[in-house]
């Protein structure tokens, strides 16, 4: 019981004090849960982060669920997930009561005209950073370009594009790259 409360409180703090989402949370979670509380060790933690990133869903929620489960089973995952969600929920629920009126103020709308430019730069920068984790080769470039043009100029459902990417990845990696490596091996 005590551990559940402690876990909830820890994740509540993490949810209330991290700006910038899942990746920004990783170091804070590590400081609290690995370094301070010793609930799990560094290697276990890194494994969980790797799996959370390789799994569909919101990374912050993935890691909270995973860490919570490993520390205190199902109830651990539930309190950790609720803990990380509740601060955001409350803050935004309060802000959204005022935001329409706030955005309607003339000078605030001027400021937001500028902020939109800043946000475009931030998202663009996130794309550049993500691109570093994608290997540059013909397969990725063709897939990326095709997805960019289809998503920009047609109404195609982006979910289909993601699924097609997954299928092509499996075909490419398992049936073509491996088969090629095998024939190369036989030649030698």
């Amino acid at each position, binding site marked *: 019981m005590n551990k559940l409360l402690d876990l909830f409180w820890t994740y509540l703090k993490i949810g209330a004090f991290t700006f910038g*989402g899942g990746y920004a949370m990783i170091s804070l979670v590590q400081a609290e849960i690995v370094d301070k509380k010793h609930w799990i060790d560094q290697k276990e933690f890194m494994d969980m982060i790797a799996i959370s990133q390789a799994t569909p869903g919101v*990374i912050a929620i993935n890691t909270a669920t995973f860490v919570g489960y490993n520390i205190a089973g199902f109830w651990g995952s539930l309190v950790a997930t609720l803990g990380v969600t509740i601060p955001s929920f409350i803050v935004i629920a309060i802000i959204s009561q005022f935001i329409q009126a706030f955005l309607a103020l003339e000078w605030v709308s001027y*400021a937001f005209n500028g902020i939109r430019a800043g946000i475009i730069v931030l998202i663009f920068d996130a794309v550049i950073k993500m691109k570093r984790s994608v290997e540059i080769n013909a397969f990725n470039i063709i897939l990326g370009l095709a997805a960019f043009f289809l998503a920009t100029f047609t109404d195609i459902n982006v979910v289909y594009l993601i699924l097609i990417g997954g299928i092509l990845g499996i075909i490419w990696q398992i049936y073509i790259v491996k088969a090629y490596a095998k024939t190369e091996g036989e030649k030698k």
Partner: protein
Amino acid sequence: MNILLSLFLVYFKIGLFTIGGGYAMIPLIQQDIVNTYHWITMDEFVDFIAIAESTPGPFAVNTATFVGMKLAGIPGALAAVGGCILPSFIIILIIARWMKNFADNKFVKAGLYGMMPIVVALILSAVFILFLNNVFRTDVTNLTFNNIDYKALFACIISAFIYYKFKINPILLIIISAGLGLVLYGILPMFGF
């Protein structure tokens, strides 16, 4: 369909197909919440991103709460946030319980290998659409050069320059770009620009 159920289902789909971090939601939100259901406008969407960036907590939860609150108050926010976090919660529980070596599975690895370039391209496409909307005040299907907002273009260039030149943090960039907006749209018109 009932609005709460719609919010829940749409956000469940968004949560399920968010692969590789919060920004991967942007193309999904743009497609469903802005273009298909018209629950929010493109400008509101960017404003929400700005507020989500400047408030604590996961980006996904912040934007889901916003959209839910706007459409149906607290129940709407609960439906949207619930839908958004449930796929993560269920999938991770299954993995933690029964599939510890999920990330090492060759099909999972190969599938992700193919999904990552798509996800990056989709976010790039989403930000390109936001840029067109912001600067050309139009969408990509009827692109004209008649009503270019030169101030918005200028704000984008200056923001990018400052961000990359001085390597400032995102919140500082938002504050600086707000100042830029005040000068370009509020103060300059007083002098006839």
